[in-house]
């Protein structure tokens, strides 16, 4: 089946564009970049077509990578039903976003570099998804973190972009530390990192109802997942990651990389199912993150930040789904989220592009007449994410909510309230952007505001070219109709979904919340625009707290970052490096010099002194020989 | 007879050596050294080393010392000025200490090698040219050849060093 071709095409694209792209023309770069992803997508289709219906996982062994004692790691790719879902998401949505990026990045510098990084990201993501052991997964894991760093800091001349890239990478590393420890424990316990062997071993073990090894492993893996998928406590990098170009936000921070954590948890379901404490932790973290992020998203004015917090919140839903045992529902939500979130980001990108760089919602308004296609597609996405029945978002979210209700009703109520908040803030953004009067700068001003997207000075808001609106339309169709893809049924052999009957009222609540949220947003931001501000004024202190993202960044800064910097500066730099190591080396030098300057006094130039020394030395030697008993 | 000659020759050698060390003019020192070499040559004869005695006189006293004398004359080295004023007391003490030192050495050697037998002139005649030649060209052939190279090097070195333009 040659699974290796799937990641190989983007890797080839990366190499060609990365090494030689400086001399290529834009059409050639486009061809290589988008073409490689297209080939990858087609190969995925061919593979899945050949393997359908994938009753057993299809494994391909390539070569032994590490052989050290009892550690035996080989490069294996495997395709099972879970992998198939992810392959389609990554290559399909990836292809659409690559196409979009051709138009979005038209006027940007470093064109070839952008597509090279994007292709590299595809390579690593596909490796992550296809890997059949934890170490190879980790390779992909780290690689996508690297590409995320490179792409967030794409506009590397802006300090906040590079800072954001650093933040993303460093926070991710904390999570990776947890992942590594988890992998070590897995190896210690099961003697291998290969999925088949680990899961077989795990299934033989009893369910651990107290805190034991399995719980420890799962919590450590969870730590890694929180880093990569931006959950509490390691979510702080995702909003800042919006400093990167919008296609990056769409691809990496909405559709694919951030779902790697969910993928990993779902893949390790055999482990998690044996550690109920860890599962509960997953669910609680997911729920808390969903709620927290939704509240912050209510107050933000930067359109990309709103969607960033929305991503964090929806990822929380996915974790909630996995945590309560509905793994397939979580994966289903990954897929639908990929559709509508990518669409939301790409649409936001189209808006920003059309406004030549403006990202502040307060400066937008009435864009419906300038960019009808964007307006319509974003409306579709917003309907989907709000949870309007029969659309994709509702299909997956409702399954999660029902599973939550079966697990613990209080989780359900918090989650469904959050769903209402979701509907509200997403439609708030839509109403602020597309309805009312245009509040931005008019055509006689060159807008160079906004982060990173260099304006081309059109002044008048305008619709984007087809290369950008095409993917928007495709994603809109998927967002609307994606709910009818029965992913849960597809994944059933792997993750059994217990469908019990839930009270009809419970089944209806999400829809009620969805429409309620949309209606409130309609009231606040279309009928009575001033109402929102007076509301904010009434809740002054609370509003400011939420607007400042609960000051979590400042808290982390004070508690973690500053002490580390101060400690590094005083202890490690001045103490150990400059004082200890430099001191030792310089001290050695000084010692040499000191000894030398004393010994050189013997070099008096007086030959007779030398002669005297010779005699003295020879007498000593003779005495020594004599004392030692002669030369016998 | 042998002890008698030994004492005379040894005394003469020591006298010349002291003279070598204490004379001011280099020529006097050189001639004293010739005296030492001569005494030693006769002592070698007593010890049965005919060839070495001859070589000593011919090479050492005849060639090397002549070279020394030539150089002294070439450099027109005069008598050494007494730059340091060594007090008489110091000089007397120095010599006394030297004598004591030498006495100690003698006694030490005497204690170490008491009964080694005696030397009589003519008791051993193994140091003939023939014997030395045989050994030189069989067992010690390599050192012999190396020595010739050494002499060549010394030759070249001396010529190079003594040129005008250095």
């Amino acid at each position: 089946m040659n699974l290796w071709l799937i990641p190989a095409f983007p890797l080839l694209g990366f190499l060609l564009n990365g090494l030689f792209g400086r001399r290529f023309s834009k059409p050639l770069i486009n061809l290589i970049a988008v073409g490689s992803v297209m080939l990858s997508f087609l190969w995925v289709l061919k593979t899945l077509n050949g393997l359908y219906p994938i009753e057993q996982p299809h494994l391909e062994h390539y070569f032994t990578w590490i052989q050290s004692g009892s550690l035996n790691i080989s490069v294996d790719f495997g395709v099972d039903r879970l992998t198939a879902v992810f392959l389609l998401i990554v290559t399909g949505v990836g292809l659409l976003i690559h196409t979009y990026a051709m138009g979005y990045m038209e006027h940007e510098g470093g064109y070839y570099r952008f597509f090279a990084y994007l292709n590299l990201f595809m390579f690593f993501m596909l490796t992550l998804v296809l890997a059949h052991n934890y170490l190879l997964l980790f390779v992909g894991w780290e690689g996508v973190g690297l590409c995320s760093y490179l792409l967030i800091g794409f506009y590397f001349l802006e300090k906040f972009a590079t800072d954001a890239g650093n933040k993303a990478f460093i926070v991710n590393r904390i999570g990776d530390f947890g992942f590594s420890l988890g992998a070590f424990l897995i190896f210690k316990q099961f003697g291998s990192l290969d999925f088949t062997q680990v899961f077989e071993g795990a299934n033989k073990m009893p369910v651990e109802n107290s805190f034991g090894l399995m719980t420890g492993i799962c919590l450590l893996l969870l730590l890694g997942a929180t880093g990569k998928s931006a959950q509490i406590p390691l979510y702080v990098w995702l909003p800042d990651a919006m400093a990167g170009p919008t296609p990056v936000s769409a691809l990496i921070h909405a559709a694919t990389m951030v779902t790697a954590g969910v993928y990993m948890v779902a893949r390790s379901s055999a482990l998690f199912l044996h550690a109920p404490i860890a599962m509960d932790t997953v669910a609680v973290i997911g729920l808390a993150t969903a709620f927290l992020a939704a509240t912050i998203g209510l107050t933000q004015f930067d359109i990309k930040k709103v969607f960033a917090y929305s991503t964090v919140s929806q990822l929380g839903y996915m974790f909630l789904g996995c945590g309560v045992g509905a793994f397939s529902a979580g994966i289903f939500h990954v897929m639908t989220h990929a559709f509508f979130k990518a669409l939301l980001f790409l649409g936001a990108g189209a808006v920003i592009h059309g406004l030549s760089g403006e990202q502040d919602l307060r400066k937008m308004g009435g864009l419906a007449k300038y960019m009808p296609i964007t307006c319509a597609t974003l409306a579709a996405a917003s309907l989907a994410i709000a949870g309007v029945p029969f659309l994709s978002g509702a299909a997956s979210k409702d399954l999660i909510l029902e599973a939550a209700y079966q697990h613990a009703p209080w989780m359900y109520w918090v989650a469904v309230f959050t769903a209402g908040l979701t509907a509200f803030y997403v439609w708030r953004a839509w109403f602020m952007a597309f309805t009312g009067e245009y509040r931005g700068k008019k055509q006689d001003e060159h807008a160079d505001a906004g982060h990173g997207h260099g304006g081309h000075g059109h002044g008048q808001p305008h619709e984007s070219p087809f290369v950008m609106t095409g993917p928007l339309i495709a994603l809109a169709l998927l967002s609307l109709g994606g709910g009818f893809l029965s992913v849960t049924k597809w994944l059933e052999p792997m993750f059994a979904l217990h469908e019990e009957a839930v009270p009809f009222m419970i089944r209806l609540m999400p829809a009620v919340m969805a429409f309620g949220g949309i209606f409130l947003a309609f009231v606040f931001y279309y009928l009575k625009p001033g109402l929102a501000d007076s509301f904010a004024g009434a809740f002054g202190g609370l509003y400011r707290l939420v607007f400042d993202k609960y000051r979590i960044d400042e808290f982390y800064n004070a508690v973690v970052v500053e002490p580390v910097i101060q400690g590094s500066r005083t202890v490690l730099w001045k103490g150990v490096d400059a004082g200890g190591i430099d001191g030792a080396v310089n001290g050695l030098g000084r010692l040499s010099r000191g000894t030398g300057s004393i010994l050189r006094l013997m070099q008096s130039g007086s030959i007779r002194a030398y002669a005297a020394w010779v005699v003295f030395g020879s007498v000593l030697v003779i005495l020594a020989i004599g004392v030692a008993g002669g030369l016998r | 007879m042998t002890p008698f000659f030994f004492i005379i020759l040894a005394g003469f050698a020591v006298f010349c050596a002291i003279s070598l060390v204490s004379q001011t003019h280099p020529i006097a020192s050189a001639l004293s050294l010739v005296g030492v070499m001569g005494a030693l040559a006769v002592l070698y004869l007593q010890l049965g080393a005919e060839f070495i005695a001859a070589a000593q006189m011919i090479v050492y006293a005849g060639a090397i010392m002549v070279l020394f004398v030539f150089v002294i004359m070439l450099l027109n080295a005069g008598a050494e000025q007494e730059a340091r004023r060594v007090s008489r007391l110091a000089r007397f003490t120095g010599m006394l200490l030297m004598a004591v030192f030498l006495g100690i050495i003698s006694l030490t050697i005497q204690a170490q090698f008491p009964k080694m037998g005696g030397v009589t002139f003519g008791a051993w005649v193994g140091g003939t040219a023939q014997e030395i030649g045989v050994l030189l060209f069989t067992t010690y052939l390599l050192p012999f050849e190396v020595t010739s190279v050494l002499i060549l090097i010394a030759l070249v070195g001396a010529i190079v060093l003594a040129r005008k333009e250095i």
Partner: protein
Amino acid sequence: MPALPFPDSVPLSWYLILSAVLFCLGIAGFVYRRNVITVFMSIELMLNAVNLTFITFSYKLKHIDGHIFAFFVMVVAAAEAAVGLAIILTVFKNRHTLLIDEVNTLKW
């Protein structure tokens, strides 16, 4: 003076004593004198003393190797004298002095 073991022979140790005395006198001259040629001659004196020791032991052991060694010492002394005097000549040409105290610029 100890009694002679045989009336007509010299104790071997006397030769060694003589050699030691000459050697020490050579060292004294080597360290004490200021004229470089005299120093050189003291070195020759030391070499002679050593030659005497070799011949003495060769007599005792009835082995001719000592003579060979003394022979080589002589050859080396000759070569050394030649080159050494050439160096002295050169130094004299440059420094115009024969006193080794005044040739002392090779210092720290």
